[in-house]
Protein backbone atom coordinates (compact mmCIF):
# COMPACT_ATOMS: atom_id res chain seq x y z
CA UNK A 1 0.00 0.00 0.00
CA UNK A 2 1.20 3.47 -0.88
CA UNK A 3 1.46 5.83 2.04
CA UNK A 4 -0.37 9.15 1.51
CA UNK A 5 0.33 12.28 3.53
CA UNK A 6 -1.51 15.58 3.11
CA UNK A 7 0.95 18.48 2.88
CA UNK A 8 -1.37 21.38 1.93
CA UNK A 9 -4.98 21.89 2.90
CA UNK A 10 -7.64 23.82 1.00
CA UNK A 11 -6.90 26.86 3.16
CA UNK A 12 -3.15 26.55 2.56
CA UNK A 13 -3.79 26.49 -1.17
CA UNK A 14 -6.19 29.46 -1.08
CA UNK A 15 -3.63 31.51 0.84
CA UNK A 16 -0.82 30.47 -1.55
CA UNK A 17 -2.90 31.55 -4.55
CA UNK A 18 -3.63 34.91 -2.98
CA UNK A 19 -0.01 35.47 -2.07
CA UNK A 20 1.26 34.49 -5.51
CA UNK A 21 -1.29 36.82 -7.13
CA UNK A 22 -0.08 39.69 -4.99
CA UNK A 23 3.53 38.88 -5.73
CA UNK A 24 2.80 38.84 -9.46
CA UNK A 25 1.10 42.25 -9.26
CA UNK A 26 3.91 43.66 -7.18
CA UNK A 27 6.66 42.35 -9.44
CA UNK A 28 4.92 43.63 -12.58
CA UNK A 29 3.48 46.88 -11.27
CA UNK A 30 -0.08 45.78 -11.80
CA UNK A 31 -1.77 43.28 -14.09
CA UNK A 32 -2.12 45.34 -17.26
CA UNK A 33 0.12 43.37 -19.64
CA UNK A 34 -0.21 39.98 -18.03
CA UNK A 35 -1.14 36.82 -19.89
CA UNK A 36 -1.72 33.72 -17.81
CA UNK A 37 -0.87 30.40 -19.44
CA UNK A 38 -1.65 27.14 -17.65
CA UNK A 39 0.27 24.01 -18.58
CA UNK A 40 -1.97 21.05 -19.37
CA UNK A 41 -3.21 19.24 -17.54
CA UNK A 42 -3.03 20.06 -13.83
CA UNK A 43 -1.46 23.48 -14.27
CA UNK A 44 -4.67 24.71 -15.87
CA UNK A 45 -7.00 24.73 -12.83
CA UNK A 46 -4.25 26.31 -10.70
CA UNK A 47 -3.69 28.96 -13.37
CA UNK A 48 -7.43 29.59 -13.45
CA UNK A 49 -7.39 30.33 -9.70
CA UNK A 50 -4.52 32.75 -10.13
CA UNK A 51 -6.20 34.48 -13.06
CA UNK A 52 -9.46 34.87 -11.14
CA UNK A 53 -7.66 36.20 -8.10
CA UNK A 54 -5.70 38.67 -10.21
CA UNK A 55 -8.87 39.89 -11.89
CA UNK A 56 -10.58 40.28 -8.54
CA UNK A 57 -7.70 42.24 -7.07
CA UNK A 58 -7.05 44.48 -10.06
CA UNK A 59 -10.58 44.56 -11.37
CA UNK A 60 -9.60 44.10 -14.99
CA UNK A 61 -9.72 41.18 -17.40
CA UNK A 62 -6.52 39.12 -17.55
CA UNK A 63 -6.11 37.05 -20.72
CA UNK A 64 -5.82 33.32 -20.20
CA UNK A 65 -4.56 30.43 -22.26
CA UNK A 66 -3.80 26.76 -22.02
CA UNK A 67 -0.71 25.02 -23.31
CA UNK A 68 -0.16 21.32 -23.97
CA UNK A 69 3.55 20.59 -24.04
CA UNK A 70 3.39 16.94 -25.06
CA UNK A 71 4.64 17.62 -28.57
CA UNK A 72 7.68 19.45 -27.14
CA UNK A 73 8.80 16.78 -24.70
CA UNK A 74 12.41 15.62 -24.90
CA UNK A 75 11.52 12.00 -24.23
CA UNK A 76 9.11 11.41 -27.10
CA UNK A 77 8.92 7.76 -27.97
CA UNK A 78 9.34 6.54 -24.43
CA UNK A 79 5.87 7.72 -23.71
CA UNK A 80 3.11 9.30 -25.69
CA UNK A 81 0.21 10.87 -23.99
CA UNK A 82 -3.07 12.11 -25.26
CA UNK A 83 -3.03 15.73 -26.28
CA UNK A 84 -5.14 18.23 -24.38
CA UNK A 85 -6.29 21.49 -25.89
CA UNK A 86 -3.76 24.21 -26.49
CA UNK A 87 -5.62 27.49 -26.66
CA UNK A 88 -3.75 30.77 -26.84
CA UNK A 89 -6.65 33.02 -27.82
CA UNK A 90 -4.65 36.14 -28.57
CA UNK A 91 -1.10 37.15 -29.36
CA UNK A 92 1.40 36.85 -26.53
CA UNK A 93 3.93 39.10 -28.26
CA UNK A 94 4.99 41.93 -25.94
CA UNK A 95 3.06 40.45 -23.01
CA UNK A 96 4.27 39.36 -19.62
CA UNK A 97 3.42 35.70 -19.68
CA UNK A 98 2.89 34.03 -16.35
CA UNK A 99 3.47 30.37 -17.03
CA UNK A 100 1.69 28.26 -14.44
CA UNK A 101 2.11 24.64 -13.43
CA UNK A 102 1.05 22.83 -10.32
CA UNK A 103 4.38 21.18 -9.46
CA UNK A 104 7.96 21.81 -10.59
CA UNK A 105 10.23 18.79 -10.44
CA UNK A 106 13.00 18.15 -13.00
CA UNK A 107 12.23 21.32 -14.94
CA UNK A 108 11.79 19.47 -18.19
CA UNK A 109 8.12 20.28 -18.54
CA UNK A 110 8.89 23.98 -18.13
CA UNK A 111 11.67 23.74 -20.70
CA UNK A 112 9.14 22.22 -23.12
CA UNK A 113 6.60 24.88 -22.28
CA UNK A 114 9.10 27.69 -22.94
CA UNK A 115 9.84 26.24 -26.38
CA UNK A 116 6.16 25.87 -27.10
CA UNK A 117 5.40 29.44 -26.01
CA UNK A 118 8.04 30.82 -28.36
CA UNK A 119 6.11 29.34 -31.27
CA UNK A 120 3.19 31.58 -30.41
CA UNK A 121 5.06 34.85 -30.38
CA UNK A 122 7.68 36.86 -28.52
CA UNK A 123 6.61 37.76 -24.97
CA UNK A 124 8.49 40.59 -23.31
CA UNK A 125 9.06 38.35 -20.27
CA UNK A 126 8.02 34.92 -19.10
CA UNK A 127 7.66 34.28 -15.39
CA UNK A 128 6.96 30.96 -13.76
CA UNK A 129 4.47 30.27 -11.00
CA UNK A 130 4.05 26.86 -9.33
CA UNK A 131 2.06 25.66 -6.37
CA UNK A 132 4.71 23.17 -5.23
CA UNK A 133 8.45 23.06 -5.78
CA UNK A 134 9.59 19.57 -4.90
CA UNK A 135 13.24 19.96 -5.90
CA UNK A 136 15.38 17.55 -8.00
CA UNK A 137 15.92 20.01 -10.86
CA UNK A 138 17.74 18.64 -13.88
CA UNK A 139 17.79 21.91 -15.83
CA UNK A 140 18.78 25.46 -14.81
CA UNK A 141 15.20 26.58 -14.27
CA UNK A 142 13.84 28.32 -11.17
CA UNK A 143 10.27 29.39 -10.48
CA UNK A 144 9.52 33.04 -9.83
CA UNK A 145 6.52 32.35 -7.62
CA UNK A 146 6.21 29.31 -5.38
CA UNK A 147 3.26 28.30 -3.21
CA UNK A 148 5.28 25.95 -1.07
CA UNK A 149 8.68 24.25 -1.15
CA UNK A 150 8.26 20.60 -0.30
CA UNK A 151 11.48 18.60 -0.22
CA UNK A 152 10.74 15.12 -1.51
CA UNK A 153 12.57 11.98 -2.42
CA UNK A 154 12.42 10.71 -5.97
CA UNK A 155 10.44 7.77 -4.68
CA UNK A 156 7.63 10.06 -3.71
CA UNK A 157 4.95 11.58 -5.85
CA UNK A 158 3.30 14.93 -5.24
CA UNK A 159 -0.39 15.01 -6.09
CA UNK A 160 -2.27 18.25 -6.43
CA UNK A 161 -6.04 17.95 -6.40
CA UNK A 162 -7.75 21.18 -7.32
CA UNK A 163 -11.35 20.16 -7.12
CA UNK A 164 -14.26 21.98 -8.69
CA UNK A 165 -15.18 23.00 -5.16
CA UNK A 166 -12.10 24.79 -3.70
CA UNK A 167 -13.16 23.49 -0.27
CA UNK A 168 -11.86 20.10 -1.37
CA UNK A 169 -8.49 21.25 -2.71
CA UNK A 170 -5.49 19.51 -1.31
CA UNK A 171 -1.89 18.52 -1.95
CA UNK A 172 -0.63 15.13 -0.87
CA UNK A 173 2.59 13.18 -0.98
CA UNK A 174 2.41 9.57 -1.97
CA UNK A 175 5.30 7.26 -1.18
CA UNK A 176 5.52 4.97 -4.17
CA UNK A 177 5.98 1.28 -3.92
CA UNK A 178 9.38 0.22 -5.30
CA UNK A 179 8.42 -0.80 -8.81
CA UNK A 180 6.13 2.14 -9.44
CA UNK A 181 8.84 4.72 -8.84
CA UNK A 182 9.28 6.98 -11.84
CA UNK A 183 12.59 8.46 -12.92
Amino acid sequence: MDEVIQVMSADDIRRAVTRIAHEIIERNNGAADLFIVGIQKKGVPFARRIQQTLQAIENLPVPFGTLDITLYRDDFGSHTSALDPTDIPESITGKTVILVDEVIFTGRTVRSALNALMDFGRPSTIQLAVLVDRGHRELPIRPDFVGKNIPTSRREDVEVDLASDPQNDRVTIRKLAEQEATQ
Partner: protein
Amino acid sequence: MTLSQKHVLGLQDMSAQDMLCVLDQAQEMKEILSRPIKKVPTLRGKSVVTVFFENSTRTRISFETAAKTLSADVTGFSASTSSVQKGESLKDTILTLSAMAADVFVIRHQASGAAEFVSRYTDAHVINAGDGQHEHPTQGLLDMLTIRQHKGRIEGLTVAIVGDITHSRVARSNIWGLTRLGAKVRLVGPETLLPAEVRQLPVEVFHDLREGIRDCDVVNVLRIQLERQEAGLFPSLREYAQRFGLNSNALREARPDVLVMHPGPMNRGVEIAADVADGEFSVVEEQVSNGVAVRMALLYLLLGGSDDAVAH
Protein backbone atom coordinates in the same frame (compact mmCIF):
# COMPACT_ATOMS: atom_id res chain seq x y z
CA MET B 1 -1.55 5.97 -25.33
CA THR B 2 -0.84 4.47 -28.72
CA LEU B 3 -2.65 2.54 -31.41
CA SER B 4 -3.17 -1.15 -30.90
CA GLN B 5 -1.78 -1.83 -34.36
CA LYS B 6 1.61 -1.25 -35.89
CA HIS B 7 0.36 -0.30 -39.33
CA VAL B 8 -2.54 1.64 -40.70
CA LEU B 9 -3.58 -0.44 -43.68
CA GLY B 10 -7.32 0.01 -43.61
CA LEU B 11 -10.29 0.84 -41.47
CA GLN B 12 -11.80 -2.61 -41.85
CA ASP B 13 -9.35 -3.85 -39.27
CA MET B 14 -9.16 -0.74 -37.10
CA SER B 15 -10.94 -0.82 -33.76
CA ALA B 16 -13.45 1.85 -32.80
CA GLN B 17 -11.18 2.76 -29.92
CA ASP B 18 -8.22 3.36 -32.21
CA MET B 19 -10.31 5.39 -34.62
CA LEU B 20 -11.66 7.59 -31.84
CA CYS B 21 -8.16 8.03 -30.49
CA VAL B 22 -6.96 9.25 -33.89
CA LEU B 23 -9.91 11.62 -34.21
CA ASP B 24 -9.33 13.03 -30.72
CA GLN B 25 -5.64 13.63 -31.35
CA ALA B 26 -6.31 15.04 -34.81
CA GLN B 27 -8.66 17.52 -33.21
CA GLU B 28 -5.79 18.84 -31.09
CA MET B 29 -3.37 18.73 -34.01
CA LYS B 30 -5.59 21.16 -35.91
CA GLU B 31 -4.66 23.87 -33.44
CA ILE B 32 -0.99 23.63 -34.41
CA LEU B 33 -1.89 24.42 -38.00
CA SER B 34 -3.38 27.71 -36.89
CA ARG B 35 -0.30 28.89 -35.00
CA PRO B 36 2.03 31.59 -36.23
CA ILE B 37 4.81 29.01 -36.29
CA LYS B 38 3.30 25.82 -37.65
CA LYS B 39 5.91 23.43 -36.43
CA VAL B 40 6.49 21.39 -33.32
CA PRO B 41 9.67 19.44 -32.58
CA THR B 42 7.97 16.16 -31.71
CA LEU B 43 9.30 13.89 -34.46
CA ARG B 44 12.78 15.35 -34.77
CA GLY B 45 15.14 12.70 -36.06
CA LYS B 46 12.29 10.48 -37.26
CA SER B 47 12.21 9.59 -40.90
CA VAL B 48 9.06 9.42 -42.97
CA VAL B 49 9.39 8.10 -46.49
CA THR B 50 6.53 8.66 -48.90
CA VAL B 51 6.44 6.02 -51.60
CA PHE B 52 4.04 6.97 -54.36
CA PHE B 53 3.62 4.54 -57.22
CA GLU B 54 0.61 6.49 -58.35
CA ASN B 55 0.51 10.23 -58.73
CA SER B 56 -1.43 12.09 -56.12
CA THR B 57 -0.06 15.48 -55.39
CA ARG B 58 -2.82 16.24 -52.91
CA THR B 59 -2.36 13.21 -50.70
CA ARG B 60 1.37 13.37 -50.92
CA ILE B 61 1.54 17.03 -49.94
CA SER B 62 -0.86 16.41 -47.10
CA PHE B 63 1.35 13.66 -45.66
CA GLU B 64 4.49 15.70 -46.20
CA THR B 65 2.97 18.72 -44.50
CA ALA B 66 1.89 16.54 -41.59
CA ALA B 67 5.34 15.03 -41.20
CA LYS B 68 7.14 18.34 -41.55
CA THR B 69 4.84 20.08 -39.09
CA LEU B 70 5.92 17.45 -36.58
CA SER B 71 9.59 18.03 -37.59
CA ALA B 72 10.11 14.60 -39.11
CA ASP B 73 12.53 14.24 -41.99
CA VAL B 74 10.60 13.54 -45.16
CA THR B 75 11.94 11.73 -48.17
CA GLY B 76 9.86 11.27 -51.26
CA PHE B 77 10.09 8.34 -53.61
CA SER B 78 8.06 8.38 -56.73
CA ALA B 79 7.77 5.49 -59.08
CA SER B 80 7.91 7.63 -62.18
CA THR B 81 11.50 8.61 -61.46
CA SER B 82 12.75 5.30 -60.22
CA SER B 83 13.85 1.81 -61.01
CA VAL B 84 10.22 0.72 -60.95
CA GLN B 85 10.12 1.93 -64.51
CA LYS B 86 12.82 -0.61 -65.24
CA GLY B 87 10.58 -3.38 -63.99
CA GLU B 88 11.79 -3.69 -60.44
CA SER B 89 9.35 -5.61 -58.27
CA LEU B 90 7.51 -3.98 -55.41
CA LYS B 91 9.23 -6.34 -52.99
CA ASP B 92 12.69 -5.37 -54.23
CA THR B 93 11.78 -1.69 -54.16
CA ILE B 94 10.68 -1.96 -50.55
CA LEU B 95 13.70 -3.98 -49.49
CA THR B 96 15.88 -1.30 -51.06
CA LEU B 97 13.97 1.52 -49.40
CA SER B 98 14.08 -0.28 -46.06
CA ALA B 99 17.80 0.21 -46.10
CA MET B 100 17.06 3.91 -45.64
CA ALA B 101 16.06 3.14 -42.06
CA ALA B 102 12.69 4.81 -42.42
CA ASP B 103 10.47 4.91 -39.36
CA VAL B 104 7.32 5.19 -41.45
CA PHE B 105 6.50 4.31 -45.01
CA VAL B 106 3.56 6.12 -46.50
CA ILE B 107 2.57 4.13 -49.52
CA ARG B 108 0.25 4.85 -52.43
CA HIS B 109 -0.06 2.15 -55.03
CA GLN B 110 -2.42 1.21 -57.83
CA ALA B 111 -2.66 -2.40 -56.64
CA SER B 112 -5.16 -3.36 -53.97
CA GLY B 113 -3.28 -4.90 -51.07
CA ALA B 114 0.01 -3.20 -51.87
CA ALA B 115 0.28 -1.51 -48.47
CA GLU B 116 -0.31 -4.76 -46.64
CA PHE B 117 2.21 -6.42 -48.93
CA VAL B 118 4.81 -3.79 -48.12
CA SER B 119 4.20 -4.22 -44.39
CA ARG B 120 5.37 -7.83 -44.70
CA TYR B 121 8.82 -6.76 -45.82
CA THR B 122 9.72 -3.85 -43.57
CA ASP B 123 10.17 -3.22 -39.88
CA ALA B 124 8.92 0.33 -40.34
CA HIS B 125 5.35 1.41 -39.75
CA VAL B 126 3.30 1.44 -42.93
CA ILE B 127 0.51 3.89 -43.59
CA ASN B 128 -1.70 3.12 -46.54
CA ALA B 129 -2.18 6.27 -48.56
CA GLY B 130 -4.50 4.48 -50.94
CA ASP B 131 -4.08 0.99 -52.41
CA GLY B 132 -5.89 0.30 -55.64
CA GLN B 133 -9.58 -0.08 -54.99
CA HIS B 134 -9.12 -1.42 -51.51
CA GLU B 135 -8.81 1.27 -48.85
CA HIS B 136 -7.76 4.82 -48.20
CA PRO B 137 -7.89 4.86 -44.42
CA THR B 138 -6.59 8.38 -43.88
CA GLN B 139 -9.31 9.72 -46.17
CA GLY B 140 -11.89 7.76 -44.20
CA LEU B 141 -10.56 9.19 -40.95
CA LEU B 142 -10.47 12.76 -42.21
CA ASP B 143 -14.01 12.39 -43.48
CA MET B 144 -15.09 11.21 -40.04
CA LEU B 145 -13.18 14.01 -38.35
CA THR B 146 -14.97 16.52 -40.56
CA ILE B 147 -18.34 14.97 -39.82
CA ARG B 148 -17.70 14.86 -36.10
CA GLN B 149 -16.60 18.48 -36.00
CA HIS B 150 -19.89 19.57 -37.49
CA LYS B 151 -22.26 17.07 -35.97
CA GLY B 152 -20.50 16.41 -32.69
CA ARG B 153 -20.82 12.70 -33.21
CA ILE B 154 -20.75 9.90 -35.75
CA GLU B 155 -23.11 7.52 -34.03
CA GLY B 156 -26.67 7.65 -35.24
CA LEU B 157 -25.95 9.72 -38.36
CA THR B 158 -26.97 8.66 -41.83
CA VAL B 159 -24.30 9.10 -44.48
CA ALA B 160 -24.90 8.61 -48.20
CA ILE B 161 -21.96 7.81 -50.45
CA VAL B 162 -22.80 8.60 -54.04
CA GLY B 163 -21.10 7.39 -57.19
CA ASP B 164 -18.58 4.82 -58.30
CA ILE B 165 -18.49 2.52 -55.30
CA THR B 166 -16.88 -0.38 -57.16
CA HIS B 167 -13.65 1.41 -57.89
CA SER B 168 -13.53 3.54 -54.76
CA ARG B 169 -11.16 2.90 -51.92
CA VAL B 170 -12.60 5.99 -50.27
CA ALA B 171 -16.02 4.36 -50.21
CA ARG B 172 -14.68 1.18 -48.64
CA SER B 173 -12.80 3.02 -45.89
CA ASN B 174 -15.84 5.16 -45.20
CA ILE B 175 -18.14 2.16 -45.02
CA TRP B 176 -15.94 0.36 -42.49
CA GLY B 177 -15.12 3.42 -40.41
CA LEU B 178 -18.56 4.96 -40.26
CA THR B 179 -20.41 1.76 -39.52
CA ARG B 180 -17.94 0.80 -36.83
CA LEU B 181 -18.57 4.13 -35.14
CA GLY B 182 -22.31 3.62 -35.35
CA ALA B 183 -23.41 5.55 -38.43
CA LYS B 184 -25.79 4.22 -41.07
CA VAL B 185 -24.28 4.13 -44.53
CA ARG B 186 -26.17 4.29 -47.79
CA LEU B 187 -24.66 3.71 -51.18
CA VAL B 188 -26.15 5.43 -54.20
CA GLY B 189 -25.29 4.66 -57.80
CA PRO B 190 -26.19 2.63 -60.86
CA GLU B 191 -25.77 -1.13 -60.60
CA THR B 192 -22.76 -0.92 -62.94
CA LEU B 193 -20.84 1.07 -60.32
CA LEU B 194 -21.80 -1.09 -57.36
CA PRO B 195 -19.52 -4.02 -56.54
CA ALA B 196 -20.66 -7.64 -56.42
CA GLU B 197 -22.52 -8.72 -53.28
CA VAL B 198 -22.54 -5.13 -52.08
CA ARG B 199 -25.73 -5.81 -50.17
CA GLN B 200 -23.82 -8.17 -47.90
CA LEU B 201 -21.88 -5.16 -46.59
CA PRO B 202 -23.43 -3.23 -43.69
CA VAL B 203 -25.08 -0.74 -46.05
CA GLU B 204 -28.33 0.18 -47.73
CA VAL B 205 -28.24 0.44 -51.50
CA PHE B 206 -30.14 2.96 -53.62
CA HIS B 207 -30.36 3.48 -57.34
CA ASP B 208 -32.19 6.77 -57.08
CA LEU B 209 -30.22 9.77 -55.92
CA ARG B 210 -33.08 11.66 -54.27
CA GLU B 211 -34.30 8.61 -52.49
CA GLY B 212 -30.77 7.72 -51.42
CA ILE B 213 -29.96 11.06 -49.85
CA ARG B 214 -33.38 11.65 -48.32
CA ASP B 215 -32.98 12.81 -44.70
CA CYS B 216 -29.25 12.15 -44.76
CA ASP B 217 -26.94 14.05 -42.43
CA VAL B 218 -24.01 13.77 -44.80
CA VAL B 219 -23.66 13.24 -48.54
CA ASN B 220 -20.21 12.13 -49.61
CA VAL B 221 -19.84 12.48 -53.37
CA LEU B 222 -17.24 10.36 -55.14
CA ARG B 223 -15.25 11.41 -58.15
CA ILE B 224 -16.38 9.83 -61.38
CA GLN B 225 -13.73 8.95 -63.89
CA LEU B 226 -14.08 9.15 -67.62
CA GLU B 227 -12.39 5.78 -68.02
CA ARG B 228 -15.48 4.16 -66.48
CA GLN B 229 -17.53 5.51 -69.35
CA GLU B 230 -14.94 4.10 -71.71
CA ALA B 231 -15.24 0.74 -69.95
CA GLY B 232 -18.95 0.82 -70.66
CA LEU B 233 -20.18 1.33 -67.11
CA PHE B 234 -22.35 4.32 -67.94
CA PRO B 235 -23.28 5.94 -71.23
CA SER B 236 -22.02 9.49 -70.83
CA LEU B 237 -20.92 12.00 -68.25
CA ARG B 238 -23.99 13.97 -69.27
CA GLU B 239 -26.39 11.20 -68.33
CA TYR B 240 -24.40 10.45 -65.19
CA ALA B 241 -24.67 14.08 -64.12
CA GLN B 242 -28.41 14.05 -64.82
CA ARG B 243 -29.08 10.96 -62.76
CA PHE B 244 -26.40 10.93 -60.08
CA GLY B 245 -24.85 14.39 -60.07
CA LEU B 246 -25.55 16.17 -56.77
CA ASN B 247 -27.30 19.47 -57.46
CA SER B 248 -29.02 21.88 -55.11
CA ASN B 249 -32.44 20.60 -56.12
CA ALA B 250 -31.69 17.05 -55.15
CA LEU B 251 -29.90 18.22 -52.03
CA ARG B 252 -33.21 19.53 -50.64
CA GLU B 253 -34.10 15.93 -49.96
CA ALA B 254 -31.36 15.72 -47.38
CA ARG B 255 -31.56 17.19 -43.90
CA PRO B 256 -31.48 21.00 -43.76
CA ASP B 257 -28.11 20.90 -41.99
CA VAL B 258 -26.61 18.38 -44.42
CA LEU B 259 -22.86 18.30 -44.99
CA VAL B 260 -21.61 17.83 -48.52
CA MET B 261 -18.24 16.16 -48.82
CA HIS B 262 -15.99 15.15 -51.71
CA PRO B 263 -12.54 13.54 -51.55
CA GLY B 264 -11.42 15.68 -54.49
CA PRO B 265 -10.42 16.58 -57.01
CA MET B 266 -13.96 17.53 -58.03
CA ASN B 267 -15.46 17.41 -61.49
CA ARG B 268 -17.81 20.36 -61.16
CA GLY B 269 -20.87 19.84 -63.28
CA VAL B 270 -20.45 16.08 -63.36
CA GLU B 271 -20.76 14.35 -59.99
CA ILE B 272 -21.36 17.62 -58.19
CA ALA B 273 -22.92 20.87 -59.37
CA ALA B 274 -20.72 23.92 -58.97
CA ASP B 275 -23.17 25.69 -56.68
CA VAL B 276 -23.23 22.70 -54.37
CA ALA B 277 -19.45 22.26 -54.47
CA ASP B 278 -18.97 25.85 -53.44
CA GLY B 279 -22.20 26.23 -51.50
CA GLU B 280 -23.06 26.66 -47.88
CA PHE B 281 -23.27 22.93 -47.14
CA SER B 282 -19.90 22.08 -48.62
CA VAL B 283 -17.05 21.26 -46.25
CA VAL B 284 -14.62 20.24 -48.96
CA GLU B 285 -11.94 22.74 -47.95
CA GLU B 286 -12.16 21.69 -44.36
CA GLN B 287 -11.61 18.11 -45.43
CA VAL B 288 -8.25 19.17 -46.83
CA SER B 289 -7.03 20.79 -43.60
CA ASN B 290 -8.45 17.92 -41.58
CA GLY B 291 -6.44 15.61 -43.79
CA VAL B 292 -3.21 17.12 -42.51
CA ALA B 293 -4.40 16.93 -38.90
CA VAL B 294 -5.41 13.27 -39.19
CA ARG B 295 -2.10 12.35 -40.75
CA MET B 296 -0.24 14.24 -38.01
CA ALA B 297 -2.19 12.33 -35.40
CA LEU B 298 -1.39 9.00 -37.04
CA LEU B 299 2.32 9.75 -37.28
CA TYR B 300 2.32 10.90 -33.69
CA LEU B 301 0.48 7.86 -32.42
CA LEU B 302 2.41 5.32 -34.48
CA LEU B 303 5.79 6.66 -33.47
CA GLY B 304 4.94 7.20 -29.82
CA GLY B 305 5.79 4.72 -27.16
CA SER B 306 4.00 3.55 -24.06
CA ASP B 307 1.74 5.41 -21.73
CA ASP B 308 3.94 6.20 -18.75
CA ALA B 309 3.45 8.89 -16.20
CA VAL B 310 4.85 12.31 -16.95
CA ALA B 311 7.63 13.74 -14.84
CA HIS B 312 7.48 17.45 -14.25
